């Protein structure tokens, strides 16, 4: 069965520091992968997605993610975090006959001044 693991529940970084949020997936075929961000009290906004092609994908707000098939990973990165990046981040995989999205449990990012 498909699954997504986000091993970090909470992460705190200083403003201006680099960020990497981990995501591992389990899926037999080529996955369709997504990163969403949720600001407090809001719905989810798509940051970026990977369907095929270049394994390094660029998203909005300066985020990027790299698909590594050998490690079953799709980690999210940002070179310099801003205070407004404080939010919860969800990784998701889409696949299978029903094309449902399977979400990880999320990583809550705090940004220190």
């Amino acid at each position, binding site marked *: 069965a498909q699954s997504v693991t986000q091993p970090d*529940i909470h992460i705190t970084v200083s403003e201006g520091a680099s960020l990497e949020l981990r995501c591992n997936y389990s899926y037999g075929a080529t996955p*369709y992968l*997504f990163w*969403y961000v949720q600001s407090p*009290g*809001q*719905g*989810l*906004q*798509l940051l970026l*997605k990977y*369907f095929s092609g270049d394994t390094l994908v660029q998203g909005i707000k300066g985020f990027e993610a790299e698909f590594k098939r050998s490690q079953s990973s799709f980690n999210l990165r940002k070179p310099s975090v801003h205070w407004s990046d404080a939010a919860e981040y*969800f990784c998701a995989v*889409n*696949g299978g006959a*029903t*094309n*449902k*999205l399977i*979400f*990880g*449990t*999320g990583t809550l990012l705090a940004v220190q001044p």
Partner: protein
Amino acid sequence: DVKVTQSSRYLVKRTGEKVFLECVQDMDHENMFWYRQDPGLGLRLIYFSYDVKMKEKGDIPEGYSVSREKKERFSLILESASTNQTSMYLCASRTGGVETQYFGPGTRLLVL
């Protein structure tokens, strides 16, 4: 831009009440989804609909039903609300297949 709206941002109901959560999208999307979000559990799929009058159970359909009479509107119904249905409910839509899902702002439901 795709717009997905949900009828209420906050809702307080009593145990046993019938509760309707409405979701409307303005992009002629075929697929619509209802999720609930709980701390530490991420998003879990309740029901989804591939097209008008079509519905399929998700991972946690117990205690819920849905209605999709028009393409743009997808309703989630709690027939008899219970305290364990206190949660954040998120609606989403997409064109179809593996395309991006677009989310509404969510409804935070408290059942007393």
